C-alpha cells in the first residue's frame, strides 16, 4: 500500500508539472514576439509603408500596396461576413429550436473547423475559374465566407445573454418584434457583437491559404476589384521562401506589421467586452 508520504510527493510532482506546462505553453508566444520585434523592427522604416516592392538587388522598397490590399480584402470580407453573420445570429437567438436553427448551429461549427485552403478552392471554383482570372473580389468572398460562421456563433452567444425581461418589456410597450430585436436586444448586446466581429476580422486578416488562388498577389497597385490584389500575408510568404536576404528582412518587417494589426484588433475586441461587463446592467 502506498504511504501517505509517497502520495503527497506524487501530488506535488504532478502539480509542479502543470506549472511547467504553463511555462512551456506561454514560451512560444513570447519567443515569436521577441523574434518579430528584434528582426522586424530593424527592417521597418517609413519607406516600408509608403513604397512599392522593388526587384531583387535594389535596396529599399516597401509593401505599401500589400498593406492597402489587406485592408481592401478585410473590407470586402466584412461587408459580406458581418451582415450575414449577424442576421443568422439573430435568427438562431430568436428561433432557438427550429430544425433550421440546429442545422445552422452544427454546420457553423463544422465550417469553422474547415481548412481555409478548402474555402479557397471553393471561391476559385465559383469566382476565378468561370471568369478566367484571379481577383480581389474572389479573395474577399473567400475570407467573408470564413467570417460568416464565426460571426453567426458569437452573435448568437451574445444575444442569448440579454435578459428575456428586456424583450418582454419592449413587446409590452407595443414594439413590433423586429424593432424589439434590433433596437432593444441587439443594442444591449452590441459590445459583445462588436467583440465577435473584431475577433473574426483578426482571424481572417492573417489568412494566406485561401488567397493563394483567389487574390493571388500583385507587385503593383490594383485599380479594380476584378484584378489580382496584393496582400500582406501573401507577400510575407513569397519573401520568406525566397533565397534573398533582403527579402527575408522585408518578410520579418511585414510579419511585424501584420501581427501588430492582428494584436491591435484582438486587444480592441477584449476592451470592448470588458467595458460591457464593467457597465452596470439593470
Amino acid at each position: 500500500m502506498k504511504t501517505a508520504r509517497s502520495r503527497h510527493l506524487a501530488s506535488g510532482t504532478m502539480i509542479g508539472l502543470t506549472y511547467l506546462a504553463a511555462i512551456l505553453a506561454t514560451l512560444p508566444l513570447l519567443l515569436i514576439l521577441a523574434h518579430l520585434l528584434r528582426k522586424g523592427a530593424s527592417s521597418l522604416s517609413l519607406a516600408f509603408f509608403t513604397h512599392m516592392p522593388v526587384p531583387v538587388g535594389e535596396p529599399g522598397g516597401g509593401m505599401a500596396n500589400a498593406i492597402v490590399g489587406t485592408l481592401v480584402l478585410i473590407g470586402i470580407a466584412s461587408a459580406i461576413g458581418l451582415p450575414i453573420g449577424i442576421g443568422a445570429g439573430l435568427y438562431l437567438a430568436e428561433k432557438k429550436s427550429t430544425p433550421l436553427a440546429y442545422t445552422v448551429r452544427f454546420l457553423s461549427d463544422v465550417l469553422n473547423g474547415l481548412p481555409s485552403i478548402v474555402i479557397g478552392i471553393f471561391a476559385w471554383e465559383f469566382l476565378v475559374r468561370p471568369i478566367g482570372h484571379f481577383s480581389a473580389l474572389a479573395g474577399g468572398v473567400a475570407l467573408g465566407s470564413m467570417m460568416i460562421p464565426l460571426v453567426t456563433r458569437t452573435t448568437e452567444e451574445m444575444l442569448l445573454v440579454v435578459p428575456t425581461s428586456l424583450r418582454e418589456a419592449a413587446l409590452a410597450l407595443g414594439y413590433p418584434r423586429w424593432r424589439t430585436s434590433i433596437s432593444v436586444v441587439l443594442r444591449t448586446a452590441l459590445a459583445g457583437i462588436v467583440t465577435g466581429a473584431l475577433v473574426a476580422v483578426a482571424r481572417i486578416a492573417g489568412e494566406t491559404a485561401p488567397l493563394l488562388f483567389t487574390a493571388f498577389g500583385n507587385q503593383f497597385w490594383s485599380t479594380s476589384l476584378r484584378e489580382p490584389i496584393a496582400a500582406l500575408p501573401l507577400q510575407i510568404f513569397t519573401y520568406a521562401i525566397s533565397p534573398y536576404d533582403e527579402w527575408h528582412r522585408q518578410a520579418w518587417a511585414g510579419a511585424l506589421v501584420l501581427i501588430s494589426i492582428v494584436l491591435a484588433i484582438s486587444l480592441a475586441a477584449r476592451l470592448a467586452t470588458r467595458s460591457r461587463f464593467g457597465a452596470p446592467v439593470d
Partner: protein
Amino acid sequence: MTSLPVDWLEKDRRKLRVDASAFSDKVYEALTGACALVVPALVVAIASAIFVAAWPAFAKLGLSIITTSDWDVAGGHFGAAPALFGTLVSSAVALIIATPLAIGVAIFLSEFSPSWLRQPVGFLVDLLAAIPSVVYGLWGIFVLIPILREDVMPFLRDRLHLGATPFFSGPAYGPSMLAAGVILAIMALPYISAVSREVLMAVPRSQREAALALGATRWEMIRDAVIPYARSGIIGGIMLGLGRALGETMAVTMVIGNRPEISASLLAPGYTMASLIANEFSEATNDLHLSALMAVGTALFIITLIVNAVARWLVWSVARNRAQ
C-alpha cells in the same frame, strides 16, 4: 354621430399599423432566415464545388489517388499517398506534443493558478491562436529549423540513441516532419487548452470537495474526480486541435520540406495534402492535374469534416450534461 367617421378612421389607422408591423415582422423574419440559410448553402456549395471538380480525377484514376505514391505530373501519375501519410503523421506528432502541455495548462489554470496569474497566462495561451499561420511559418524557417537541425535533432539521434529506431534515423534535414509537428503543436495548443479549461471549470465544486473529503491528495482529486467528469469534453478539444492540424496549410508548407516521399524518419522532409494543393494549384498544367489536386482537397475535406463533427458532438454532449 359626427364622431363616427373619425372613429372609423382611427380604427382603420390602428388596423393599418398592426398590419404594417405584422408585415414588417414577416420581412424581418424572412431576412434573418435567409441569412441563416446562407450557412447550409455555403456548406453545400463548398462540398459540391470540390466534389464536382474532383470527379474527373476520381473517374479516371479511382482511389489510386490516395493509395499510390507516385506523383508525376508529366507522366500523368497522381498518387498522393505520401501527402496523406504526411498529413496524418505531422498531426499525430503535433498531438503527442501538444496534448499533455495543453491539458497541463488547463489544469493549472482551472485548479492551481494563483488568481493574479490566471488572466495573463490564459490570455497569452489564447493569443497563440491569433498569430497568423504565415508568421508561424516565417518563425519556423528562420528560428525553429536552425535550432532543430543544430541541436535538437543531433541530441535526439545521437545522445539519446533514438537514431537506432527508424523514427529518428538518417541525416538531420532542417525542414522535416518533426519541424512541421512542432509548429502544428504550437498552433493546436490554444484550441485544446481553451476547450479543456472550459470543461474543467464546469466540473461542479461538490465533485472536488467530495474527493478531498475522502482523503484524496489534490492530484488524486484531479485524476479521479475531475478529469473523468470532463473526459469527453477534453477529447472533443483534442479532436478540435486535430482538425486544425490536419488542415493547416501555410506554416506546414514552409517547414516540412515538400518532398513527396514516405519515410519513417521524422528527421526527413515530407509533404501534406494541404501543402500539395497550396504548392501546385495555381500552376496546375492540365485538367487532370487540377482535378487530381481537387481530389486531394476532397479527401482533406472529408477527413476534417468527420474529425470536426465528432469533436463538436463530444463537446456538446458535455454541455448538455451540464445543463441537466
